[in-house]
């Protein structure tokens, strides 16, 4: 995630949530999960760099 974001030139913060109560607020069925600007993009799998790029381009 971090390398894909860095390559995109976006300087927004990338973080990893480990607090289960905070994770629960997203309603995801499992982890890992990816959230971009509050929108859940992937659940239960690590995305490919291409997937991340396409999400960042949206």
């Amino acid at each position: 995630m971090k390398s894909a974001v860095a390559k995109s030139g976006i300087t927004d913060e990338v973080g990893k949530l480990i607090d289960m109560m905070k994770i629960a607020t997203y309603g995801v069925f499992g982890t890992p999960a990816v959230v971009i600007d509050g929108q859940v993009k992937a659940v239960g799998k690590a995305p490919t760099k291409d997937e991340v790029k396409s999400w960042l381009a949206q």
Partner: protein
Amino acid sequence: MADDCCTPNGQVMILACSGGSNVGQISNQAVVELTMEGFGKIYCLAGVGGKLSGFVQSVKDTPNLLVMDGCPVGCAKAIFKENGLTLRNHVVVTELGIEKGGPLKPSQEEVDTVKEHTRGLFAGQSLPKAGGCSCCCG
């Protein structure tokens, strides 16, 4: 996010209409019991209906899915259609010989009928045992 807990690992996501009729409540009780027995994990259909991204994306990314409607009105089915989700392993309680309109509190016999049918849908499939973690969503 954390990757040491809550990973679905292919366990069955179970959604029920949990509607306001006997068959809706039978669907809910069957799903609760299937979850407690380790068959899969109950998930929140209301979140999908509300188009919350975590719920909709979770359905998209979960390979093993069970969707239960109480009656032919098919609210769960409609929620899937509305969200462009692929319906898989769809159970309708009234199609199992249980009539709509009975007492709201389900009998164990009716719940067992639904559970038995549901387990039969997945017979022969190698499903992972559901874990004890229920921290992500109920």
